[in-house]
Each structure stands twice: as C-alpha cells, then as structure tokens.
C-alpha cells in the first residue's frame, strides 16, 4: 500500500505545488509506514522530487500526452495506481488537479475529498480536516473506501525537504482513445496567476473605472504579485472574469492579500479568507473589510497607491 502524488509540471518543469504535495505525501507515507511514489508527465526536472523524499519517481513520456487532459491522464494514473498498489492519491488544488481528481475518482470508484488543510487526524478511521462553506467553516470528515484521493488546499502544507533516493522509472501503459482534442491554448505569458501567487493585489469598485488599473498593475509588478478584482468589477467588464475572486469566483490562498477600494462583502471575504495576511486600503473607516484585515490604511487609494509604489521601489 503506497502513497501516490501527482506531480504537476508546466512546460516540462515541476510547479511549486508539486513540492507541497510531495512534502504532504511523504509525511503521510511515513505515518502509514509505506512508500511515496511521485508521478509526472513529460517532465524534465523530475529528479528534484528526491529532495522531498520520493521513494520512486515515475515519468510518463509521450507526445500523445503533451496536452493535459483529465481523461487520458486519469487513465494512465489509474494504471499506475493498480500496478503500485496505491491506497492514497495526493493532488494539489490547482484547476487542472481538481479537474483530474474528480474524473479519476469516477473511473477508479474511489473516495475523493478536496480542500484538505492538514495531515489526517486519524488513519483508522481515516479522518481529514477540510474547509467548507467557502472558508466560512471547517469540518473533520471521515472518508471510507479502499482508494482515497485527497486534494490539498494551496499554501496549507509547508514544503519540507526530506532526502529520498527515488529511482526514476519510465512506465508502459495502455493508451486510451479519446475524441477529445485540444485545438488551441491562449496564455498571457509572464503574468503571475492568482493560484500560484504568493502575493495578490486586488481592487474593487472604489477604483472608479478600468482606466485606473495601471496603478494596480504597477503595484503588483513591484511586489511580483498577481492582480485580482471584486465581482462587480469583472461583471462591468473593467477586468477579465479570470480575476474575479470570492465565493463565486476564484479562491485566494496567498501569503499576502492587498484589497484596495473593496468594501469587504461577505461573498468577497469568503473567497479570500484563507489568505494569511490581509491589508485593506479603503477611504471609508466603516468598511466591513477592516474587521477581517490584519493591517489597514484609511484613505484615498488614488493618493496612497502611487506613494506606496514609490516607497516600495525606493526600498529595492
């Protein structure tokens, strides 16, 4: 009975989340007294996973698996699961990993649980802690079933180094046929995404119009941050939908979340609650967001942001 970690890569390089999942997988495999097997697809720096304690590393190399698809990747993983006698699968909470996890659960009839925030509280019965009601609450949840799939919330588990001496193996697998074809991918290159960012700079209706976003982008650039926005801002088309965060948008679990001209409605807060440190800049001292913030500045964003940018630049 081993633990399998699906190690995500992008353009052939491991993503940061794959070190989080490997660290979690290692700790769990030690508790279970089992081995940690990491699986990646078309990845060139997979040996890095040894630093996090992999006992075996499987690299699936195939030009047919160049594009991520939940279906074909799941079928390959299900073959590894069977061959390696896997009892728990660990995934990150990226959009792709959650996409894959649900489908994999379907074809393997396993028990899938997402938004897990810590190592299991007990192994027998198997009890995990997860966030629910969009971070307004947590639950301890018992999972039944022989094969379990756990997707862990981003930034909820610390990356731990742990020497491993995993041999890298290539595997034979049977390809599944699929009519699903990726025809094109459009990516804004160079931009940090909300899911991967350590810092997120977010702005709301207080910014008054899309023409004022240059200062938000500049602040984000100085901090190496991703940009985000409140729901009305994306509904009005000031910013793309992909930047909408909150209960009905994207979740944010960054180390630092800076909210500018956002009132702090309950639906907004629900989505950003699991960010570690929150800074609020708002002209209204009564804005509800201040109650949910760690640091706050009461004042006009149009004065504060340019000055903050200058000071941050000067500091570098």
């Amino acid at each position, binding site marked *: 009975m081993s633990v399998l970690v699906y190690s995500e890569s992008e353009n052939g390089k491991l993503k940061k989340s794959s070190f989080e999942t490997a660290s979690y997988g290692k700790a769990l495999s030690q508790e279970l007294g089992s081995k940690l097997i990491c699986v990646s697809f078309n990845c060139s720096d997979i040996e890095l996973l040894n630093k996090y304690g992999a006992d075996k590393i499987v690299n699936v190399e195939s030009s047919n698996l160049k594009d991520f698809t939940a279906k074909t990747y799941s079928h390959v993983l299900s073959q590894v699961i069977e061959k390696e006698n896997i009892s728990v699968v660990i995934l990150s909470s990226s959009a792709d990993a959650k996409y894959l996890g649900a489908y994999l659960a379907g074809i393997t009839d396993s028990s899938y649980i997402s938004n897990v925030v810590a190592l299991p509280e007990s192994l027998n019965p198997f009890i995990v802690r997860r966030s629910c009601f969009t971070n307004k609450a947590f639950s301890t949840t018992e999972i*039944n079933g022989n094969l379990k799939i756990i997707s862990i919330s981003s930034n909820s588990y610390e990356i731990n180094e742990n020497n491993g001496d995993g041999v890298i193996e290539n595997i034979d697998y049977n390809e599944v046929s699929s009519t699903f074809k990726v025809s094109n991918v459009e990516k804004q290159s160079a931009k940090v995404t909300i899911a991967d960012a350590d810092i997120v700079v977010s702005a709301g209706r207080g910014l008054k119009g899309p023409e004022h976003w240059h200062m938000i982008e500049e602040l984000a650039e100085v901090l190496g941050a991703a940009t985000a926005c409140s729901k009305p801002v994306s509904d009005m088309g000031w910013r793309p939908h992909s930047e909408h965060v909150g209960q009905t948008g994207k979740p944010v679990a960054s180390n630092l979340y800076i909210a500018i001209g956002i009132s702090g409605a309950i639906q907004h807060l629900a989505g950003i609650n699991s960010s570690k440190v929150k800074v609020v800049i708002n002209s209204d001292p009564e804005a509800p967001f201040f109650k949910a913030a760690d640091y706050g500045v009461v004042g006009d964003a149009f004065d504060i942001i340019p000055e903050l940018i200058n000071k941050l630049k000067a500091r570098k």
Partner: protein
Amino acid sequence: MNILVCISNVPDTTSKINFTDSDSKFDKNGVQFIINPNDEFGLTKAVWMKDSNKASVTVLTVGDSSADTILRKCLAIGADKAIRIDCEAKDAYSVAKEIVAHCESIKYDIIICGRESIDYNGGLVPGLIAGCLDYNFITNCVSLEIESGKAKCAREISGGTEFSECDLPLVIGAQKGLVEESDLIIPNMRGIMMARQKPLDVIKAQNINSRANDKKFFKPKEKGEVKLVKPDELDKLIDLLENEAKVI
C-alpha cells in the same frame, strides 16, 4: 438533443453559517436556499440551446421535497421538465452516483453541472459523473457550441484559456463566462405560470452509501484587531509587512 442540468440547492451567500447536533450538522434554520450560481450559468446556457440547437432541457436535483421550490424556479427560467431523485443529499459521491444511475436509463447528449457548489466547493460531481459514464468532460467551461454533433468548448486554465473539441456525450462544469451575469434569466409572470404546468417527477433513489461523513464542524478563529497605519506613514506599513508579518 437532450440536455440534463444538475442543480444543487445551496444556502444563500449571505447566510449565517451555524451548526446543530453538537456541531455535526449544518443548521438550516432561517437559511434561504438558492440555485447554486455555477449551475445557474449552466442552466441559462441550456435554455439558450433550446433555440439554437432545438434542445430539450431537463433539470435534476438529488434531495428532499424542500428542493422543489428551486426546481420550479428552474422551470420558470425555461427548463422543460424537472426531476427530483428523492433522498437526502449526503455527499458528492452518493449524489453523483444517483445521477449516474438515472443517466444509465435515460441518455442525455450533454450533462451540465456547475463547476463546484458554493457550500462544499468540492467540484466532484461533474467529474465523477463523467468518469463513471466514460463521457467526455470539460470543467471550468466558459464556452460551448455544438455543431453537427461535435462540441467546441473553452476551459479557463491557470493564466489563460484552452480551446478544445470532442464528440458527444459530454459532461461540463459550468461557470461564469459560459454566459454572463447579465444574461441570467429572471423568471417573469408568464414563466412562473407555465412552470406550474410543466412536469416535476419525483423518482426513487438508489440509496447509495456516502463516502465522506462530516463528524464535526467548526468556525475559523476570530480575527484579532486590525492594525491601522496612517496614510502618511506608509513606511511603517512596509516595515510591518517586511518585519512583523514577513510577507514581502
């Protein structure tokens, strides 16, 4: 073309989240339930496809009779028919398996779910249905067009959009972008009247065992007091973020 839209009945976003039975159950007392927002984007798209693709639209929920109100609302929005699989929705696994059992007896060309529900945010149901039925599957779906039996779709991915094509049958996880917020249909009087004539079938559940059982709920710790910094002391803010919070 037959479209099934799976609807989840979720607490209104402004609901106070409380628990009963020694914190083991969600307290429904005084809570208003709504159509899960991601499902509503999917439903709106399906209603449009009645015109563009001559589709027939069935909405389905797994739940007890308290879910009938939102099913009627879905009919008023424009669905042709509603089905309720009669049992308590225990977890995503048992819900998905109930839907799978229904879809094995009645074939749908497209099964639309929300990408995730706003109560448990599991995102499990659409993938599980697709995996069990061996259908194609696209989640975080922001565009869907059907032409001569083939689907052209777009999926929001980290930092961009992925365009794809596949055959039907297909399961999608809908989200904003598939239709816009301003496209959502507010039922009018005529829709509400017509909804009363449309069928709402209650069917027997398979009573599948759940796989995830919540033992205890708890709320996050209350936040400490916010530290305010004056607008003309931004150096102090930078210092706090750098040396106290250690986040920059």
